[in-house]
């Protein structure tokens, strides 16, 4: 694994941006791909995080604090060492219809891969809708970026509500976020799934998701799937 030194952090409550200096290269990371990030001791599992942005061995992640590893990242002083490997998973661009434009629908930390997508493929982006619960999230984003935020606390609307106003058949949807959000999207949407992962490379069979074509692996076959292919009851 590659050593990754925590260089910068910017936190607002349970969300934060974390920039790591890598002592090695990520090879041509694409949007939708993720890294497996590991702390030096606890937890012992490496866990998946989508690439928010990557440049010159500087990797930025957008992380929601939910448990042990994310908790540790939040409380680490600058200079703390982590380990990463990747990029793993398939680039979104390899799985979607390349002729379309897309509305990027993000919920919470699901915004991470969508940001990287819009950095790498700006011409394919029709609109960005990034949903969050609380206004506190604003302070993490620049004024320009804030235009894409849909904050429930302020507008009493979710991204799905707003999506209804802009959506039309010829535009694709590329979404990443919590399951309840994904379930409310049109059937043809591309949805980026999460699952508990062990290896991140397709060997351990931890990240199973049931589809109409049988059990698939989020890390090896995804993370992006057509919404209509997923057997949601299994999740």
């Amino acid at each position, binding site marked *: *694994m590659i050593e990754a030194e925590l260089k910068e952090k910017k936190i607002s409550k349970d969300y934060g941006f974390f920039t790591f200096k890598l002592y090695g290269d990520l090879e041509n990371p694409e949007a939708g791909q993720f890294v497996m990030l*590991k702390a030096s001791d*606890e*937890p*012992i*599992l*490496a866990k998946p995080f989508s690439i928010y942005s990557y440049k010159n061995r500087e990797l930025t992640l957008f992380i929601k604090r939910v448990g*042990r590893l994310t908790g540790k990242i939040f409380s680490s002083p600058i200079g703390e060492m982590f*380990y990463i*490997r990747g990029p793993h998973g398939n680039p979104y661009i390899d799985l979607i219809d390349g002729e379309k434009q897309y509305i990027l629908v993000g919920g919470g930390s699901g915004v991470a891969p969508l940001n990287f997508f819009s950095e790498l493929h700006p011409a394919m982006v029709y609109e960005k809708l990034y949903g969050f619960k609380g206004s506190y999230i604003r302070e993490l984003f620049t004024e320009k970026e804030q235009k894409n935020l849909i904050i429930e606390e302020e507008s009493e609307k979710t991204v799905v509500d707003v999506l209804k106003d802009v959506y039309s058949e010829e535009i694709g949807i590329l979404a990443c976020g919590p399951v309840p959000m994904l379930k409310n999207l049109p059937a043809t949407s591309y949805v980026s799934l999460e*699952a*508990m*992962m*062990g*290896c991140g*490379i*397709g*060997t*351990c*069979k*931890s*990240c*199973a*998701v*049931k589809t109409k074509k*049988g*059990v698939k692996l989020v890390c*090896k076959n995804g993370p992006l799937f057509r919404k209509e292919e997923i057997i949601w009851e*299994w*999740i």
Partner: protein
Amino acid sequence: MGVDLSIDVFGIKFRNPIILASGPVGFGFELMPYLDFSNIGAITLKTVTLKPREGNPPPRLVDSHGGVINSIGLQNPGIEGFVEEIAPRLKELKTIKIGSIAGFSMDEWEILGEEMDKIKEIKIIEINLSCPNVKGKRRWAEDAKLTEKVVKIVRKLTGKPIIAKLAPDVTDIVEIAKTAVDAGADGLTIGNGAQAMRIDVETGLPILKLKTGGLGGPAVKPITLAKVFKTREALDVPIIGIGGIMNWQDAIEYAMAGASLLGLGTAVMVDPEAPVRIIEGIKAFLERKKIESFNKIIGVAHKGGLNVH
């Protein structure tokens, strides 16, 4: 000034003692970009059952302090799929291949043993008597009589070396181990995941759908190590030590307790480069201690330690 890491067991020469445990690396192919198989002693392939299995509903993995609880449920293509799709590709893996099978009835064991015996690339057969993740099934290795029956059946069907994979969390592992060896096992794998669970405090429900799963990782190391030690004290057969080996120190501990081969499960799942790191560490340790071959440290904890030699 090289040290000799090779071991001869089961009439086979392993280039070094580090092998991949069954499961976490599947059939190994996806791991090839990350690990040069010519550097490791062997791979034990994912356990194969008679019928294809889609595995348990998610979540299939949850971690705890020092460990990982898995509940994969033996997702595999079944023996037919294995013979047709996997077996022909096995020669791509440049190391010794150990096949792993698990039957749910004596008839199933019989077919599985027969089919595995036929595959040329498979040099050794591991019989998985201890999978903790199958709904409604007790583990064979909890019971000496069942262990005996299964080993005897497989023994009849193959001339290849067979290894019984035992559960670490039984009252008396020596009893089960003796039974397996008396029934014809050429060696033992100790151990598999220990039955374990976590509860989601927010919902009040077990996190895993089958409630319990198998705990591996450094948390269980001292427990499984003690089982290897006790078994080796009582029996002189080759043992594959598996359970929480994360670094070269852990590997050496297992060797000193009596294991000839050292299997990595969680470690290689977390970090595909772990085997290489561990092999380097073992080598450096032996060099520092001026011990010319790995063989010399196997079981030394039973023989007065390192300084006696």
